[in-house]
Structure formats: structure tokens, C-alpha cells
């Protein structure tokens, strides 16, 4: 998983993301008086950014293929963690449930080789 990006490229990408993120943060705080409200055309899609982006990050990590086909350990761990997340809305409990289940399936229930 280690990147083949050279060091200057890593710093470059960090810097560009940092500058753009800062511009987003400063936007309305800095421009208040010139620009008081988010235009409605922009506000509506913005409301769906967190749910859509987070789901697009989460689901492909749970439903993945490994050497033997569908990665069962990740699917089961992700499913159980989803139930815990839904019940508790707690980051720590969700992580504990997900990692615990992953290890249980991977090392105890279905150890491969």
C-alpha cells in the first residue's frame, strides 16, 4: 500500500489540499458583509455531501473481493459494526465492534492458511 509518490509530491498534494480546505473554511467567515448567505442552488446539494461521500467511502471497504471471492470477514465485520453504529452513534464502540469481529472471523472462525 505504500505510495510511490516522491517526497516533494506528497508535500505538494498536502499543501494543495490544505490551501483549498482553508479557502473553504474562510469563505463566508472572511467575506461576511459581501456574501451573507449560501446561494440556494448550492445549498441544496451541499446538504447531501456528508451522507453521499461517507457512504461512498464506507461501503466499498466492506464489500470487497479477495483471493477466494467476496471477502467474508470484512462483510460480516462491517455489517455488525453498522448495527452498533446505528444503535450507539459512537465512534469508539463502532470501531471496537468492527475490529473485534474482523479478528474473530479472520483468526478464529475462518482462518485461511
Amino acid at each position, binding site marked *: 500500500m505504500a505510495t510511490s509518490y516522491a517526497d516533494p509530491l506528497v508535500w505538494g498534494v498536502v499543501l494543495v489540499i490544505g490551501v483549498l480546505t482553508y479557502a473553504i473554511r474562510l469563505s463566508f467567515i472572511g467575506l461576511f*458583509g459581501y456574501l451573507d448567505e449560501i446561494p440556494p442552488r448550492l445549498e441544496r446539494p451541499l446538504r447531501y455531501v456528508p451522507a453521499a461521500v461517507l457512504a461512498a467511502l464506507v461501503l466499498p471497504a466492506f464489500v470487497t473481493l479477495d483471493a477466494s471471492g467476496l471477502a467474508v470477514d470484512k462483510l460480516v465485520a462491517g455489517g455488525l459494526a*453498522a448495527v452498533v453504529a446505528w444503535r450507539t452513534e459512537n465512534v469508539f464502540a463502532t470501531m471496537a465492534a468492527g475490529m473485534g469481529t474482523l479478528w474473530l472471523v479472520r483468526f478464529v472462525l475462518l482462518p485461511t492458511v
Partner: protein
Amino acid sequence: MNRADFRRGVRDVAPLLLGVAPFGLVAGIAAANAGLDLTQAVGMSVIVFAGASQLAALDLIGRDAPLSVVVLTAVVINLRMLMYSASIAPHFRTFAARVKAGLAYLLTDQAYALSIASYRGERSVDRVAYYLGVAVTLWTVWQLTTAAGVLLGTGVPDAWGLEFAVPLVFLALLVPAMEDGPTTVAGLVGGTVAVVGAGLPLNLGLLVGASVGIAAGVRSERSMEVNATDGH
């Protein structure tokens, strides 16, 4: 600056640190897995200081995704802060530009949520002091746990699959984000499209999934409005 209000900010943010600390550890571990060294990892946490975008960017950097995809993905994830900036701006309007510039750097999900609740609750609070109490605490914990995560991450065997903690963090944030019908549609559609698109070239699955999910959310909101109008 009012010290009591600063301390109140620190006190109010304390329970949230239980969620932020493991998140920071995971960010550090992810940075180590992606091949960043301690300086680069902490540099990223200082310069970007936005966990979800850092994790997504690290995942893509680790897979050697094109630069433009890494940047675009991180920016899309951070777009939600436009809403925070707009919402909190009226409370900061009387401050000097220099102060605003500093406060903006520290804007995060948690700093926004706690501060806006406090500003709305009582008019007398020292806004800068309370905000800094929350935000500086978050910043410090974020940097320390990122560094700890890098040191930890390099020592753990691959079989433990520590990178799996990353989507678990996002999952815990996703559930409260799916707060009503249209946001749930946005999540379900975005996630499904991202799974189907996982094999797309340039690691575009995430961006395509997110875009289609956002469009689905907007569409579902419109259709609900139409139904509501049709009803009575």
C-alpha cells in the same frame, strides 16, 4: 479573553475527544501504511487538519491515484465546511480580519457544532474564548494522536488489518449524517454506486459514487416536495 469561557469550551469538548482520539490514531496509522514518515504525517495533520479528507487522501495516495483525483476527493469531502463557515460567520462579523483568519483555520465539525449551540443558547458568552477552548483542544489532541498513530502503525503486523478501522470511523459518522429520507437515499445510492464503481480507472469510484449520491438526494427531496404539494 474570558478565561472561564475558554475553560467551558475545553470542558464541553472533553467527551467528544473519546471519538477524536481513535480517529487521530487511525489517521496516523493510515499515513504510516501509505508510506508517509512522521514529519509528513504530522505535517498533513497541521496543514489540512480535516480528518475525513486526510484519510480518504491517504488511501488514494497509498494506491498511487492521480494527483487530481486525490485533491478533488479531499476537497469534495471538505465542502461541507462551506455550510459551517456560512452559519458561523454572522457571530464572527465584528472581529478583526486577522482574528477571523485564525478562527477559520480551526473550524471543524465539532468546533462548529459546539460553538453554534453555545452562541445560540446565551448571548453573553465570549465567542472567541469559547471557540478557542473547543478548537485548540481538538487541534492539540489531533496532532498528538496522529503522531502516536504513525509510531504505532509501523509496528503492527499487516494481518491485523488496522486499515479497516478507517471505514469504521466513517461508518460512525455516516449514521448521524443519514438523518432523514433524502439524506438516507443519498447515502444508499452513493455507497452502492461506489461499490459497483470500485474497479473504475483512476480510483474514480468514490467521486462518481458521491456525485450520483448527492444527485439522488436532491432528486428525492424534490419528489417529496411534489408529493407534499399534491397531497392536500
